[in-house]
């Protein structure tokens, strides 16, 4: 589903968060948004999800104006979005029950999706009884079960340790390749953006403008990102991170 921003502006009172933003996200494209904290990335996603409306400008999904949330465009949150009072199975099934599917088929479908994210055997666990990584697997199952045309991810793995994060990035990549939704991923992790995305957009401080857009192309990738070393350094540099390897502070950090 094609997503189109034209002259989208968003402000909260006096605070201009997004200013005349234009871009088109092609059907099936995977776009990563990176940028400093507070620049408005989540706000962009919330507008795409229909949770918030632009102050001015238009935002369309598949040609139709985005006025309210729809299961066609689903959003995965950083954490704590599973319902603590429901088992993992009920959490996933809920996405279908909210679409008035019968409970029995919802549960059967939910079982299938939990096993697709390697959570079989944990159906009857409550979220607080499983690890953070398992919770996000469950969150992915809950997002994919509705077969969304657009998948919006807001730092989905931001709260996980590096190793778990990489495993989940692979899980997500496989799911995206099988289901082929249009994806908008917000992340602080440049490697995650390079690994998953076809295109990376780097945002400036508020009001957010695009500093740089990098086309990576839809090519098969592994976690070995050496081929993208130049892009990686450039993006890190744009985010204001010191990429000079020979600073004294850096070498001190290594001996310590």
């Amino acid at each position, binding site marked *: 589903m094609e997503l189109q921003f034209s002259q989208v502006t968003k402000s909260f009172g006096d605070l201009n968060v997004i200013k005349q933003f234009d871009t088109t996200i092609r059907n099936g494209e995977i776009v990563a948004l990176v940028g400093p904290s507070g620049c408005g990335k989540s706000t962009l996603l*919330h507008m795409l*999800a229909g*949770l918030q409306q632009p102050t001015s400008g238009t935002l369309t999904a598949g040609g139709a104006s985005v006025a309210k*949330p*729809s*299961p066609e*465009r*689903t*959003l995965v*949150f950083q954490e*704590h*979005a599973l*319902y*603590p*009072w*429901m088992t993992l199975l009920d959490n996933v099934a*809920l*996405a279908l*029950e*909210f*679409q008035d599917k019968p409970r029995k088929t919802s549960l059967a479908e939910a079982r299938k999706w939990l096993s697709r994210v390697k959570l079989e055997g944990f159906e009857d666990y*409550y979220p*607080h*009884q499983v690890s953070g990584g398992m919770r996000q697997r469950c969150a992915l199952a*809950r997002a994919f079960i*509705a077969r969304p045309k657009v998948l919006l991810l807001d730092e989905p793995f931001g709260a996980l340790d590096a190793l778990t994060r990489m495993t989940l990035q692979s899980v997500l990549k496989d799911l995206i390749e099988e289901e082929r939704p249009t994806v908008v991923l917000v992340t602080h992790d440049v490697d995650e953006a390079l690994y998953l995305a076809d295109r990376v957009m780097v945002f400036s401080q508020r009001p957010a403008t695009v500093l740089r857009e990098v086309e990576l192309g839809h090519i098969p990738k592994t976690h070995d990102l050496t081929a993208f070393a130049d892009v990686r350094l450039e993006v890190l540099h744009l985010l204001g991170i010191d990429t000079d390897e020979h600073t004294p502070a850096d070498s001190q950090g290594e001996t310590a």
Partner: protein
Amino acid sequence: MNNSQTTGVASKRAYVAAIAIILFFWQVAAWFLPDFLMPDVPVALQRLWEELNSGEFYEGLGNSMSRLGIGYGAALFFGIILGLVGGTLDMVRSTLKAAIIILQSIPSIAWVPLFLILMGFGNMPIIVVVAIGAFFPTALSVMNATESVEKVHISAARVMGASKMQMLKRVYFPAVTPELITGAQLAFGNAWRALISAEMIVGFSAGLGKSLAYSGEIADMTGVMTNILVIAILAAVIDQVILERIKHRLLRYQYL
């Protein structure tokens, strides 16, 4: 969790110790005071046993319990509805809350003359006074909890396409249940006090409060102490056994 079980045993022990101490002080008072002012504990227990084998006692008990059941039940029902609706309506919430806090500070028994005149001598004024006592803490706790339902839980449901009704049933209601139960236990204390005092004042047909007031009128101190004993035991059983059970059942996910 093992923890909750050990604390359960510990709190049972504390209860047994507390009961022993209370009975001990009663007995000490009975030693110092003449029998017609304060009966010995065994004498009161003997009377309690006789009461338990008489039909009259059960008539009073039945009347009191149905007044409590109807009044408390209605208060929970309407309190939950008002709490949920008030908690979601930003416009009226603070006014509503202020109104509840003001009305709550009026002792429920103060309403008796009004409702006696309004509704006439009978069961109704007692039931209404019980309901008033239980309504405010229920509504207030549900309203406060509704207000602080996690935003991400609401956004997630909207994204999954929940209708208003589904949102209320599957998100708001379970989210407020922990606070609702605390409020309901507080409300029970109020309802119980309101019931006994209203029965003492109104004195319509048999009931625990009426029986207590009558024993007082004929200066039957054994009767007074027996009635107080019954009132105390019933309150403890309802609160500590029935309500605690319901709480553990509804919040099962928290105790795993």
